[in-house]
């Protein structure tokens, strides 16, 4: 069982923004916020699996917004997470055609999120398409590009993780993956637009 640290809002935001590991802030958020947020979903037409999925998406949204300095800190982290959770669930219910007028009125009445957050949440579908597009590259490209662009590993570090002969081979492989992606995007302007839409928040 992981050790659950205790964070003030400021400390939590600082660690998410600057820390390289998300383990501790996430452990904290799951231990502190999962139950009440899940309860909200389960009391409003959702089951336990919905509650888990929506919470995961809420956390992801929160971290992305914090990392991009889009969380303005006008409300507490708890209030903000509740608001994001509610918004995502309202969108999901709408998508499933199960949004009741009662819940919509309640969610809108409660909502105090800013337009940036609403815009971010409204792009859920576009982001999902981007994720699917990346998955289509295959596991090798996925791992090389993730290691390089997300984990910011050097070619030498990637080489030690993947079994290639030398760094040049890794470099070539990465270039090939990038080229494939570039070509796919060039050939499909709609997908390129979806990428832009999903990844530009303001």
């Amino acid at each position, binding site marked *: 069982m992981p050790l659950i640290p205790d964070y003030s809002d400021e400390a939590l935001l600082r660690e998410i923004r600057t820390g390289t590991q*998300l383990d501790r802030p996430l452990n904290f958020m799951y*231990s502190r916020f999962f139950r009440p947020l899940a309860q909200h979903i389960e009391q409003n037409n959702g089951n336990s699996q919905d509650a888990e999925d929506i919470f995961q998406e809420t956390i992801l949204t929160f971290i992305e917004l914090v990392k991009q300095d889009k969380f303005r800190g006008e409300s507490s982290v708890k209030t903000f997470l509740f608001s994001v959770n509610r918004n995502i669930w309202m969108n999901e219910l709408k998508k499933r055609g199960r949004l009741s007028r009662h819940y919509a009125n309640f969610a809108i009445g409660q909502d105090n999120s800013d337009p940036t957050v609403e815009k971010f949440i409204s792009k859920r579908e576009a982001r999902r398409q*981007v994720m699917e597009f990346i998955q289509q590259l295959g596991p090798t490209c996925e791992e090389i590009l*993730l290691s390089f*662009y997300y984990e910011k590993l050097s070619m030498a570090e990637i080489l030690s993780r993947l079994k290639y002969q030398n760094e040049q081979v890794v470099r070539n492989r990465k270039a090939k993956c990038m080229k494939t*992606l570039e070509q796919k995007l060039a050939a499909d302007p709609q997908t390129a637009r979806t990428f832009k839409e999903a*990844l530009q928040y303001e």
Partner: protein
Amino acid sequence: MNNETNHEDLIKAAMGSYGLKQEVARLHKENMKVVEGASSPVIRMMRPMMRIAASLLILIIAGSVYFYFNSTSEQLFDDAFISYSPVTTRGENADRSIDSRTTLFNRAYEYLQKQELDSSIAILQRIRNDAGAGSIAENADYYLALAYLRNHQAAKALTIFKKIAGDVDHPYYKEVSSWLLWKVRFLAWKQE
């Protein structure tokens, strides 16, 4: 070239977003095990059952509270009371002793209706103790129990109701249901 550079930026941003999603998904799995109490499938399975049990418990408590405050001597008396048509046995061949017992019973019944309970109880007890009272005594059983019930003596009423319930040949056997017995028992407990 511009387009390609633009795509490269997009790809970098997309990989950043994708990587974050993967990391959050990994940590989600780890944390759910902790949050769900080591993710015990038994606990997960039990949760809906526990919710149903909790709802039932609330219903039972609410029902009990309602029942407690609505179980009164007056209410139970009204529920169990059966109108009785006073019988006149006067006639040429009428047995005088039977006639007097019937008259007595009629009087006790009138007292009961007027809520003169002590008088009604005294007469009904006399009839019951009269060895020759026959079927009048069986009537007296039921109405004495009712009189006790109305007089806030549920324990005494219960004893008589139990006797009637244990005798299938008793003319009031069908009137004393298990539910009535349960309610009188509850009232007796409340009055203790």
